[in-house]
């Protein structure tokens, strides 16, 4: 566990006040994990702007006792992934909506709602709930994740024993301007099993979500999410993944709009020849509300011959801010590691900014790790070339933006899902020409 970030009375008082304002569920099997998490949170304290990993993102709205108001965004757009055959589970402002959801039965998969385990003392998720989150607190503290483990009101516990018959889709609806949702999901992929998890929607005015994923030998986990378009929503999300030998983890996130989003992804590769890819495409237009998007990634290589990729792209305009903090840690003995990290921003004007902090820490000698970060504008020469062929400026710009995002989207293996993401992007770009 991380050392307290600072012995700071103000911070501790604020943290205690926050804890006092939390509605702490009883827990059942998760009771012990929740109590531990609360201790962690107390020890760490909620973050402040002076903390190293919160330099670029102001955590105050995430830390506040009450969720700051966020207007509900009305849209008649069809459900993302709506055309894909999938099992849908709906959360309305953080509350499970059984009537809107499918039955929790799916071949190859066992699904339980966290909220239904309040009286369950023995559950497979006991080895997982809060466990990966706790591991992920070192060396960088992630107080909001500890808060989540302590206070999560619901979530799904998914055990995958075979190849899931279809993707599981978590739909997060936002209906109340003051809703504050804390959800915690656990996914256990057993040896050789495979699951695709989809997540879409804004969830709440303020959303704190943790996803813990434990992938056993040879297991595969695909994750594709599209964070909702509500302009004023705020979100802090964490993925904690543990990846065993020969296993595969692939996660892609699309973010458009949202006044504040911080997506953390903490991956630990613990078995040889495993693969972990995490990618994101974020598009923000300050003209339709504040846009602040932060990807904070930490990948630990603790095995031989593993491959990791981080591909993050941001398109920013009208005063939008993008943040990328990405680290690759290669532990002693993690030879033949192939680690790659790229973070790029396309600034569509001079008001927007991209702040990047790439880090490499390598304790093995036979590794191949590279990282790069770029900030650029639309290529005027390419733009003219397209226009000279008759493509109007807006359309040409959109095409160049999509091409800029292509490497991130390419991380989605399933073509149907990738196509759906691309058409969302196209629609978004078409709505805000220029």
């Amino acid at each position, binding site marked *: 566990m991380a050392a307290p970030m600072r012995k700071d009375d103000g911070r501790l008082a604020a943290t205690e006040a926050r804890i006092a304002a939390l509605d702490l569920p009883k827990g059942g099997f998760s009771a012990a994990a929740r109590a531990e998490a609360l201790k962690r949170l107390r020890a760490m304290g909620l973050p402040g702007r002076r903390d190293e990993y919160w330099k670029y993102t102001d955590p105050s709205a995430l830390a506040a006792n009450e969720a700051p108001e966020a207007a509900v965004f009305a849209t008649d757009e069809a459900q993302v992934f709506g055309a894909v055959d999938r099992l849908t589970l709906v959360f309305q402002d953080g509350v499970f909506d059984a009537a809107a959801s499918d039955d929790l039965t799916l071949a190859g998969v066992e699904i339980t709602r966290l909220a239904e385990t309040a009286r369950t003392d023995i559950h497979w998720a006991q080895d997982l709930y809060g466990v990966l989150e706790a591991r992920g607190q070192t060396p960088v503290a992630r107080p909001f994740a500890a808060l989540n483990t302590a206070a999560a009101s619901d979530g799904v516990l998914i055990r995958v024993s075979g190849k899931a018959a279809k993707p599981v889709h978590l739909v997060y609806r936002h209906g109340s301007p003051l809703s504050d949702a804390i959800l915690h999901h656990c996914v256990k992929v057993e040896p050789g099993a495979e699951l695709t998890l989809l997540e879409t929607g804004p969830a709440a005015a303020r959303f704190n979500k943790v996803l813990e994923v434990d992938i056993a030998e040879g297991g595969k986990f695909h994750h594709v999410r599209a964070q909702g378009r509500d302009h004023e929503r705020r979100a802090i999300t964490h993925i904690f993944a543990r990846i065993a030998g020969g296993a595969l983890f692939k996660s892609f996130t699309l973010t458009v709009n949202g006044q504040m989003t911080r997506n953390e992804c903490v991956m630990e590769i613990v078995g040889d020849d495993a693969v972990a890819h995490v990618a994101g495409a974020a598009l923000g237009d300050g003209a339709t509300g504040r846009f602040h998007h932060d990807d904070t990634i930490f990948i630990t290589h603790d095995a031989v011959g593993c491959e990791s990729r981080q591909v993050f792209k941001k398109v920013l305009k009208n005063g939008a801010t993008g943040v990328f903090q990405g680290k690759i840690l290669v532990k002693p003995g993690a030879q033949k590691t192939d680690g790659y990290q790229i973070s790029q921003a396309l600034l569509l004007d001079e008001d927007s900014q991209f702040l990047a902090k790439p880090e490499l820490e390598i304790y093995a000698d036979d590794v191949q790790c590279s990282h790069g970060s770029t900030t650029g504008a639309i290529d005027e020469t390419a733009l003219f070339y397209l226009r000279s062929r*008759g493509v109007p400026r807006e359309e040409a710009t959109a095409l160049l933006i999509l091409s800029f995002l292509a490497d991130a989207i390419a991380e989605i293996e399933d073509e149907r899902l990738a196509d759906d993401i691309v058409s969302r992007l196209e629609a978004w770009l078409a709505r805000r020409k220029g």
Partner: protein
Amino acid sequence: MLEIKNLQVKLEDEDKQILKGVDLTVEPGRVHAIMGPNGSGKSTLSYVLSGRDGYTVTGGTASLDGHDLLDMEPEERAAAGLFLAFQYPVEIPGVGNMTFLRTALNAQRKARGLDEVSAGEFLKLVREKAKTLKIDAEMLKRPVNVGFSGGEKKRNEILQMAVLEPTMCILDETDSGLDVDAMRLVADGVNSLRDEGRGFLVITHYQRLLDHIKPDVVHIMADGRIIKTGGPDLALEVEKNGYADILAETA
């Protein structure tokens, strides 16, 4: 169809006059060639006609079929029928050649009030044109011009021209970087587009291309002006004697 009168152009950011009064008229069905020393303003003329940023027109006019070109956006000029085969075709990583072509074709059709072509029709059209230019399917799949050889890029320009079927085609040194066989392919591609309704302005340094694409008129450009206009023989004269005599004669 293309009418340029006393066109004067300077650089936007610099006080440098590049075109100093260009007069040129290309009639439908005719092929005009422009030759001239390096830096005389040939590419600048083609860029200004197609609407590239960075230049300021300080005088004169340019029109296509009576429409004022200088008043239009680049995409409007394209929709009006203008096409420039670039001296240096641009690479666009991440945009597939086919997507690029289809977007361009449909955008132009839309601007002209026509329906979009279906994916099937489009594929058929491109395959057929690509075949005659010996552009293989693999090249069509790649991002626009990325990793193309110099000659492949030039052939790709002609493919775009063949698919978009513009009425006024400007070719800026499309022959440079082409091997003998590719030159013939490109010339065949251009010749197959020659018809009564279409005009060509072919910028080149070499008579070689003009052996294949027979011009009706040849212009010599120097220091931002057309200094001499003649028949196909003028190109032969340049090939033999260079520009010294012509420059001296008009000085």
